Each structure stands twice: as C-alpha cells, then as structure tokens.
C-alpha cells in the first residue's frame, strides 16, 4: 500500500497561443498546468477535483503523454516515463490506461465491441490465439457486468451506462497498473452513476488497480477516493485524505467549493453556511500574480497574497495546503470579508508587450 507508483514532479503544460498566417508567432501561453507535484501510491485512488478550466484533465492527459508536458517529469514505477521514446513508450503505455468522459465519442461507432477490446490486446502481443482471447474477452465483459452477447454489438446499441462499462473493459483488457479516469460518470444519469462508481470500486478490489479519478463533482470524488487533490487555475491548492478534506478544509477555495455543493437533504441545506465566491475563474492565459486565488478569496490579506505564490506545504501529516495564511484562517484569526467581483476578460490571452504586426488571419491579409 505504501509503495509509490506514480510520482509527478513539477509538471507543466503550457499551450502556445499562435497568431498570424505567414509566420506562426507565439504571442502568449495558456498556463493550463503550472507546476504540479503529486504522488499516487499503489492500490489507492487519487481524486483530482476542480472546476472547468483548472487544468485537471490536461494534467491527466499529460501524465499519459497524450499532451506533451512542457516541463517536469513523471516517474512511473521507478522509471522516468516522461523521457521514454518510441517503442519503449508504447510498451509502457500498456500499464497506464485511460477511461474517458463521453463514452459515445470515445468508442469508434464502426467497431464492434469485440474489435474494440481486441485492438489493444493485439497491439501489445497479448492476443494468444482465438480460444484464449475469446475466453479473456468473456472474462472482461463479465467483470464489467455485460453479457457475452455484447461482443458482436456496436456502441450505439448500448445505453450510456453500458457504454461506459465498455470503456472500462477496454482499459482493463491490458491488465494495467494505473487507470486514469477522466470524468467517468459525469455524462451519466444519477441512478446509473452509482452503478459505475460501484463497478470501479469492485474492480479495484478484484484486480488491485490504482486509480487517478478526475472529476468536477466533489461528492463523487470524495466517495471514491482515498486521497483528494484540489486544483485551481493550473496548480494544486490542497491535498488530503478525503475524510480530512471534508472534515477540515484548509484552503479558502476548498471551503468555498465544499459549501457550494448542494446536499440532497433540506435539513442540511437550510442550516449550512455558504461561502459564495465572487466573479469567475480568471483566464489561465493571464493568471493573477502571487496566489492564483487572491482575486476571489474572501480571506485575502494585504501582504503576500498578491505578490508571492504560496507553495504546497504540509500543515498536518498527510494534509498539504498552498495558502500563506492557512493557520490563521483555521484559528479564526483572519475573518472573511466581502469581495467585489472583478471583470474577467474573455480575451485571447495575448500579452500586451508583444507587438502585433502582420495579419492575424487570411481575411485580414486580403482586406488590410
């Protein structure tokens, strides 16, 4: 349990913003993931939560190198995964599989379930003859709770929940060590959501899997995860066991996030104190200086918050937080205050010091 399977060190993914027809000039960057460190132990479930645009999906994809990270590295089972190339990388990918959010668009509509499942086995030389593969496929389907008649069907013949089961079977087919599940249940109806959540838990017990679950729904993440990391604008702001995080959120953002989630119980709803955040998430192309959250933080202080970016530090064993004033906020020394919403520009993130010469598009080039 205590052995580290994945260790991500200072991971960065910056997407360039390009402009121009003739020369692809880079005029800025979207700082989707900006320096994230995390460790996942073998056999545990690590949950990554945050709102849309906080970089959680990009981080997950960068770990699998579906997006090339700009900086930092990932150590997977003692090997530097981020420096692997070609055939070595391809072989290593067998051990890290992914389950995507939208089960319909991540399954090829023209491939039967059998061909979807066999594809990975063939690519990794695990297809050992017709009989054995057939047996393996039936095992997989029964593991995810589908009848073996499903093999000859196509994705459109299934309901949303069943399609997600196929996606999970595809990830399982290669006996991976780590499964990265990006919003595995958010496209499903609530009654079906619980089926898939339970399935993921059962499979973990059965096959000793390690999960990285990425989701925006804190209640789902809390339910399924052993440890949870909360992301805001490209960085981790808090990391703790799921019980600790819920019982004692230390970062102002986590507090606000927890208080914003509706609980299906009127008694709780009437009593709870809500921390409403003002305004919107700032643009990741032009992130605020210092602490990324200071523009919306009700606990913001005059000093440090807007100048110095807080590092993730361990406040209690196993509970890390990236806030300069976490202790004072917890003890009540600093009280929340009103925050005026700041206009968030839906701009293109072009930094003002880049000279914009030349046309930006074909239309501009033709009609200057």
């Amino acid at each position: 349990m205590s052995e580290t399977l994945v260790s991500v060190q200072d991971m960065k993914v910056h997407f360039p913003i390009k402009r121009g027809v003739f020369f692809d000039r880079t005029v800025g960057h979207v700082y989707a993931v900006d320096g994230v460190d995390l460790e996942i132990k073998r056999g545990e479930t690590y949950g990554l939560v945050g709102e849309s645009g906080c970089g959680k999906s990009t981080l997950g994809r960068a770990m699998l190198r579906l997006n090339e990270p700009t900086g930092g590295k990932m150590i997977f089972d003692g090997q530097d995964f981020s420096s692997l190339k070609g055939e070595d990388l391809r072989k290593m990918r067998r051990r890290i599989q992914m389950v995507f959010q939208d089960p319909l668009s991540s399954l090829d509509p023209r491939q039967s379930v059998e061909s979807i499942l066999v594809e990975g086995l063939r690519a990794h030389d695990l297809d050992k003859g017709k009989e054995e593969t057939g047996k393996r496929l039936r095992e997989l389907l029964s593991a995810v709770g589908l009848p073996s008649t499903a093999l000859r069907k196509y994705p459109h013949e299934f309901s949303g929940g069943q399609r997600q089961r196929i996606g999970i079977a595809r990830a399982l087919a290669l006996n991976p060590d780590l499964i990265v599940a990006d919003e595995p249940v958010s496209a499903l109806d609530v009654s079906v959501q619980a089926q898939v959540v339970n399935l993921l838990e059962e499979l973990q017990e059965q096959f000793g899997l390690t999960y990285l679950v990425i989701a925006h729904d804190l209640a789902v993440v809390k339910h399924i995860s052993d440890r949870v990391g909360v992301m805001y604008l490209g960085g981790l702001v808090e990391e703790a066991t799921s019980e600790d995080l819920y019982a004692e959120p230390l970062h102002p953002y986590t507090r606000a996030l927890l208080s914003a989630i509706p609980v299906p119980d009127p008694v709780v709803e009437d009593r709870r104190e809500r921390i409403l955040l003002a305004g919107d998430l700032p643009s990741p192309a032009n992130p605020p200086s210092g602490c990324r959250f200071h523009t919306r933080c009700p606990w913001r202080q005059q000093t440090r918050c807007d100048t110095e970016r807080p590092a993730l530090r361990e406040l209690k064993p196993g509970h890390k937080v990236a806030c300069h004033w976490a202790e004072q906020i917890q003890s009540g020394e600093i009280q929340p205050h009103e925050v005026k919403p700041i206009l968030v520009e839906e701009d293109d993130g072009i930094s003002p010091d880049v000279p914009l010469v030349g046309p930006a598009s074909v239309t501009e080039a033709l009609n200057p």
Partner: protein
Amino acid sequence: MALLEVRDLTVVFQRKGEEPFRAVDGVSFDVEPGQTVGLVGESGCGKSVTSLAIMGLLPKRGAKITGTVRYDGTDLLKLSDKEMRDRRGRDLGMVFQDPLSSLNPVVPIGLQVTEVLERHRGMPRKEAMIEAKDLLDKVGIPDPNRRLKEYPHQLSGGMRQRALIAIALACRPKLLIADEPTTALDVTIQAQILSLMKELVQDLGTALVMITHDLGVVAGLCDEVNVLYGGKVVEKAMRHKLFAEPRHPYTHGLLASIPRLDAAPGEKLTPIKGSVADNIPWSQGCAFAPRCPNALDVCVQVTPAEEDQLGRLLRCHNPVVPGTPAAEEVPV
C-alpha cells in the same frame, strides 16, 4: 386560487410510421403565487417537455397536447399564437439550460434585454436601455454599461446565465420557469446563480417552477417537489417530507444512489438497477416495475393510481416502508 394549474397535461409525439410516444402522461400540479415548485427526474422523464408545453413552445405539428394549463384563470393551451406571444415574456418568463444557445450570438446583450421591454411594456429604446442597465446590475453583472454593448461570446457562462435571467425577469412576470438553469455551470457559479434566483424570487414575489435532475438543488430551493418518471408524477410532497421519508421506490432509490458529501467514509452506494430504457408502458402497469426492488406481480399488470396519503401524492402498489434501507441489488 393557484397561479398556475396544470391538469392532466399529456404530450404525445407522433411521427409518421412510428408508434406514438407519450413524453408527458397526465401530469398535474399547482403553483401558488410566490411558491417554488420543483420537477425532478432523470433524462427522458418528460420534465423539459412539460415546461415547453406550458410555454406553448412545442411544434404544432407532431406534438399532440391535451389537458389544461390554467394561468390566472385562462387556459394557455386554448390561446392563439398571437395571444400567447403577448403573454410569453410578460406574464411567464423562462430560463433555459444552455445560455449560449438561447442568446442570439449576433445581437448585443443590451438589445436582447431591451427587446422584451419594448415589446411588452412599450418603452422607448432610450428608457429601455436605462432599465436594462438596472436589470443587469440587479442580477449581479459587474460594469453593466459596458456589458450592454457586448455580445454573448464575450461573457462567461455564469454571466450569460445572469443575462438570461435578467431578460426573463425584465417584465416582472408572476411565473418563472427555469429549465436546468445551472446544469451547464460549475458548482461555485451554480451556487451564485441559485442564491441570485432565490433572492429575486423573494424580492419580486415571483413563483418559480424549477426543473432539474439534481436533488441537491431541489432540497435547497423548492417548497414542493414533483418526482417524475416516464412522463408521470410518481411522488409529490413538500420537500422536508419528501427527503426525510421518500415512499416511492424510485425516489428512495435515487436518494440512495447519490454520493453525499456528508456521508460516513466507506459507505456504499446503492444504485437502481438497469436504465431508463427498461421501462414498460404505463398503460400496461408501472413503468418503473422492471427496475424496482419492491415490484410485485400486480405492478406489471395494473397501472398504479395516484393516491393521496396525508399531503403526499404517491403512485405505487408497494411503497417503501419508512425506515427501510435501500435494497441491495446486483447491477445488471
């Protein structure tokens, strides 16, 4: 008298060469002035079609609507198109789910707000602009003067939804129908919008019909809750009663299948087996019977009638006895 009285509303979609599909099947509910009523259910339960039918937004061809929708004494379903146009936006406001596709992308926000004011209140453009600025201010859009001139794509999702609420409330309607107004938004933005709606509804005395799949949203906002399944209301009660003691196996199952933030660690979820596709038609029995842990033989033979049980309407042959834990089911 109730502000809105929906009685036996039925919407049947008929396509050539296909079996008619009953999307809404005899739905009845009342909305008192100033009250917030919730319609909850999963996708395909008919909650959105109900709202479109009330607003008269369903196509004339292909959709057969029966029953009555009485608003302030007049039956909306009997009104002509022109009469309905006069009422929509003035007496009945609507907020849709996706703010980007319900705003016109090539018209500035300001014009879209003033359009309602000019059409229904006969305001001159200049005056309407001033009113529009106040409206945007009221729904919490910062710097409204500038936002009036901007286009929907220049606003964030939360701001767009605020603009949409401003448009819906421009004529101070007595009834507002909100169809999944926060589903497309992040939780922190959802919390902003919900508290805004709560505030506005209280200030203006507007009645609200809240359509959502999220039981958490309903728990915090609605006075009365209607749970829909397969086009029928299966359970209706005041919110405290409904959440404390769900009697219909579907409501009970839904509540047991939602992971809760305040749940004890290690608590298992109890899903409802199968999916909405496993329904049987209501004419044959109870639509939920194939998925129901409490199903008896009678459930697939006789359609359960709506019964009044001490302030709670229930449509079930074998309701959940209060206090029983959710039945363990093997997922199919």
